[in-house]
């Protein structure tokens, strides 16, 4: 089933940036489109407009062959008729209902028998056995998230909308659930649109990333492409990570993980299992360049390579290096002159293990 979502909307808020977002993208069976951007960039307004909870002054929203909104011809499809699963920030579980009651809430159209069957199915899928009769306030953050997701998918929606699905959780839970959410989404085989301000979530969850800034969608593409090849300085600044390469974990000891990227190895902090595929992410500011052949430092990673390209960025220069994989470093003009850097110069890139971020990816 090939489906497409096409959004072209304008919404103004008094005293704030006007939201003016255009995006259209084919959503395959399990495609996750991530709307990524800093807070205040308009992500939530866009997803709420798709849900039908916010009415843009102008524009159109189409999903597959249906028009949900067309201000010119006055089409306004209500949220009830859009067949979506929506999970708001902080989940909004219904406090007077049990876990079961929450999941069954949207299943009024089913007969009592079918409803019971569907609830049982979801309780199993989302590992909520034993919690069926619990009230929302008795659940942990992670459990609440699973209930909210189960409730959203129970009526078999055509599209899943998740607004900051992980930000209500504490950090350790968030890291753990990031991967879990990804595999759940794949299992559900539902197209989804996910809002997040966290670039690690964007990388893990997204098949496609749409970068938002100042109320506009600036760039759309596969996550790795958007992160490593930002269209302009604005996108680069929002994304903030210049190097994203694919690697595999080959060793793991004492919180230190060794990853292999095209024959080069790097050490980073993490607890990913051996053999698991990861994105290796390094910010350009965290890369130190030194002359080839100088001494040992405390940093774990010393990578020999060659300068490919130098681009000035204000008082800084951005240096692209080939050290088995493409690496981007940001140094000052003074440092560039001292090191006599020009395309082709041999160089050693030094990166502390703490600056190597590992983000799980799916194959």
């Amino acid at each position, binding site marked *: 089933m090939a489906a497409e979502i096409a959004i072209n909307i304008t919404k103004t808020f008094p005293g704030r940036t006007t939201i003016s977002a255009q995006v259209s993208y084919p959503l395959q069976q399990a495609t996750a489109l991530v709307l990524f951007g800093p807070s205040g960039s308009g992500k939530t307004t866009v997803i709420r407009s798709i849900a*039908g*909870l916010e009415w843009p002054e102008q524009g159109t929203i189409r999903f597959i062959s249906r028009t949900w909104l067309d201000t010119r011809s006055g089409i306004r499809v209500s949220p*009830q008729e*859009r067949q979506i699963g*929506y999970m*708001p920030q902080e989940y909004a579980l219904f406090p007077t209902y049990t876990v079961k009651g929450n999941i069954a*809430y949207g299943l009024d159209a089913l007969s009592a028998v079918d409803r019971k069957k569907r609830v049982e199915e979801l309780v199993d899928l989302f590992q909520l056995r034993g919690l069926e009769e619990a009230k929302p306030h008795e659940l942990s953050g992670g459990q609440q998230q699973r209930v909210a997701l189960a409730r959203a998918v129970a009526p078999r929606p055509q599209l899943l909308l998740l607004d900051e699905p992980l930000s209500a959780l504490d950090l350790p839970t968030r890291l753990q659930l990031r991967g879990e959410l990804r595999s759940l989404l794949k299992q559900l085989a539902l197209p989804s649109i996910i809002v997040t301000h966290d670039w690690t979530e964007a990388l893990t969850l997204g098949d496609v990333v749409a970068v938002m800034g100042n109320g506009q969608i600036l760039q759309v593409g596969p996550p790795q492409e958007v992160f490593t090849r930002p269209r302009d300085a604005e996108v680069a600044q929002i994304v903030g990570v210049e190097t994203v390469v694919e690697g595999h974990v080959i060793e793991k000891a004492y919180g230190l993980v060794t990853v292999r990227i095209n024959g080069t190895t790097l050490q980073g902090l993490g607890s990913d299992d051996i053999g698991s595929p990861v994105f290796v992410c390094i910010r350009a500011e965290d890369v130190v360049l030194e002359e080839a052949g100088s001494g040992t430092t405390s940093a774990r990673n010393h990578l020999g390579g060659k300068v490919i390209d130098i681009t000035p960025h204000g008082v800084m220069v951005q240096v692209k290096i080939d050290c088995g994989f493409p690496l981007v470093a940001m140094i000052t003009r003074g440092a560039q002159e001292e090191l006599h850097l020009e395309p082709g110069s041999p160089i050693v890139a030094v990166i502390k293990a703490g600056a190597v971020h590992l983000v799980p990816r799916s194959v």
Partner: protein
Amino acid sequence: MALLLIGLPIAYWLTFSKWRWKFLIESIVALPLVLPPTVLGFYILVAIGPHSPIGRLYSDVVGQALPFSFQGLLFASILYSMPFAVQPFATAFEQVDRKLIETSWTLGLSKLKTFFKLIMPLSTAGLITGAVLSFAHTLGEFGVVLMVGGNIEGVTRTVSIDIYDEVQALNYAGAAQTALFLLIVSYSILLLIYAMNRKVWAVWPQK
């Protein structure tokens, strides 16, 4: 009961409407709070009297005039006690998180169904308060009743008017009895509301 049926939609509308002139209706609903009961009673009497369109329509349909009848009294009581029902309702609705309501909509539930399945159970405390408070207030009202209902034994004589009559007749013992009865009833009702509200909050800690 009648008040509950009329008060709920008004409170819902007051809470969720984005209409800019909403405050006009809000103040009209609250008007009986500040207006002397005799003023309100006078206007109601004129409004439902045989010379007004409403009064004529009613007597044409039912074949009986509104003033000085039980139905007329009911109508007046509804208007007069409206703020006591609507305001607790509206406050309770306002405290329901918008996000819950919106989520309910996306799950395919109409606004009406959302109201019964979600908003009502979440505002039980406010609903009970409003219902009981307006009932108690209706029980004790005087001015409006006297104006609209007259004072017809067995038809439109209310408890508070009864006390007034007894005092006029210098029957202090009878008045004291009825007054004590009213005092006890009112106090027990308030006692019940406050006790119940406390329990409700303890069972469902909000947020």
